[in-house]
């Protein structure tokens, strides 16, 4: 499928945004390795982190096929202002409740997105989505189990779930919102309608929260597009890129 330049440009931007979401989320998940509440969960969350980073690679490889860009150069060379992830994933990992609630919100969205993206007219994207969708089934089981158990566990765990939802909720609209190039991509049959994905995700979240007696706060969305970031991302990137940036002449790591 040959792409018209505006469509290709929109797809490059969309793939970058998807990769950035996964990479930053996977990075936050990986911060728990060695510090999880119990040994088995150290192992489980490390797997999820690898999956997310693997998805980032899938999207960046798909982008490389379009514009020849190098995944490592993008990940280790861009400053905060050039990243296009949603702010939800750059928020610090917080406590276990926050990590699981954030993961749950993202997993619900991803499941709705990927199940539709598997039918993309852009074959490399459809294939990558099929691979990622498989892993998302497991992610949603895991984060869904945790949100359910913590909401219905002890008074303290329920309180922490409430606090986590309060913190995450203003950032959810950005995740579900259309991106600048989406209209072109939807028309070309490359990505599903963001309105459709967003509505399905919202319904899934609402149903789960209602079952669990979790009431999201009535608050305005955190404003701004994907080019706007918090200081948390600055600190994250300084740490993440330090080794690579210290030796720019290095050809291999």
């Amino acid at each position, binding site marked *: 499928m040959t792409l018209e330049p505006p469509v290709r440009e929109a797809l490059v931007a969309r793939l970058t945004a998807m990769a950035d979401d996964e990479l930053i989320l996977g990075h936050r998940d990986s911060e728990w*390795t060695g*510090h999880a*509440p119990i040994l088995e969960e150290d192992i489980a969350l490390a797997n999820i982190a690898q999956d997310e980073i693997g998805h980032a690679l899938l999207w960046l490889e798909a982008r490389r096929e379009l514009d020849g860009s190098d995944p490592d150069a993008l990940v280790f060379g861009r400053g905060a202002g050039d990243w296009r992830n949603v702010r939800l994933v750059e928020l610090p990992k917080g406590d276990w409740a926050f990590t699981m609630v954030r993961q749950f919100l993202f997993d619900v969205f991803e499941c709705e997105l990927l199940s539709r993206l598997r039918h993309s007219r852009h074959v490399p994207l459809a294939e990558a989505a099929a691979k990622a969708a498989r892993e998302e089934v497991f992610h949603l089981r895991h984060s869904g189990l945790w949100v359910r158990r913590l909401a219905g566990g002890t008074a303290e*765990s329920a309180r922490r779930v409430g606090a986590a939802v309060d913190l995450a909720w203003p950032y959810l609209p950005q995740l579900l919102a259309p991106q600048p190039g989406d209209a072109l991509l939807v028309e070309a049959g490359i990505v599903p309608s963001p309105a459709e994905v967003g509505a399905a995700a919202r319904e899934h979240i609402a149903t789960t929260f209602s079952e669990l007696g979790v009431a999201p706060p009535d608050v305005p969305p955190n404003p701004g597009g994907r080019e706007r970031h918090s200081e948390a991302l600055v600190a994250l990137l300084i740490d993440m890129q330090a080794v690579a940036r210290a030796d720019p002449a290095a050809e291999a790591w």
Partner: protein
Amino acid sequence: MAAERAGVVEDPARLEAFEARIERGEKIEPGDWMPEAYRRQLVRIISQHAHSEIVGMLPEGAWITRAPSLRRKLILIAKVQDEAGHGQYLYHAAETLGVDRGELIAALLEGRAKYSSVFNYPTLTWADVGMIGWLVDGAAIRNQLMLAQCSYGPYSRAMVRICAEETFHHKQGKEMVLTYAAGTPSQRAMAQDALERWWWPSLMMLGPHDSDSPNTPQLARWRVKTKTNDEVRQEFVDEHVPELLDAGLSVPDSDLHVDRASGHWVHGAIDWDEFWAVVRGNGPVNAERLAARRKAHEDGRWVREALAAYAARAAAATP
């Protein structure tokens, strides 16, 4: 031959039959008769091994967020994940001997349990991650291959599973160091510096000299340990020195030489004072390691309680 120490005098006929089983190469399984000393030694060895894996997650875990390429990032998360997994398999083996995992963990966090001294050294650069994979895991593999022959079934099985996974750790570490040794001046210097700090700790990791290891003869008799510390250390040195030299690195031991008669590499004297200081808790980062584990455990308390409460409620609700 009566068993010693704990004052337990084992039934001589039982003991003879037990030792005959081991002689025949049979595995002792949970539920089988075993001398108290065998059980006690195994609990000690297995739990120390488990603790080492858990604490061992920390020195490299700190560098996960800084891995300088996507591939290295994935690899390092997988490696540290494996270390958690290895701790898990080992705690399981200890549990088959009737000990409770919560109690083992409490012993570690309260400073009552030992773990491998090598993890009480700091990781100061990215190259340390590679050097740990190559040398520390290289030493561990030698040890684990030997322990896979252990007469106690659950420990042997844990070792076989761990050996299968550890080879990846060793190879990716070697790949990293070879890359840096052949890379930019900065990368080469980083690799050399890492070697200088990890060479002796890796040698010491294989334990005191045989002359200072009182447990070894009995452990050998019961096929818990089938090689001595010095034997394993020699294997480690013979394997790794030529490869390090090939890579253009310089081993920080001015006495290192080949013994013409045997063909073995002979290393210089180990500074055992440092080893004992580190084992006893005075190493560079002993306190930090345990503090990190304590924090993770404390921070996780409400989580463990919450799931237990949920499960209890669900069980009560089920007819």
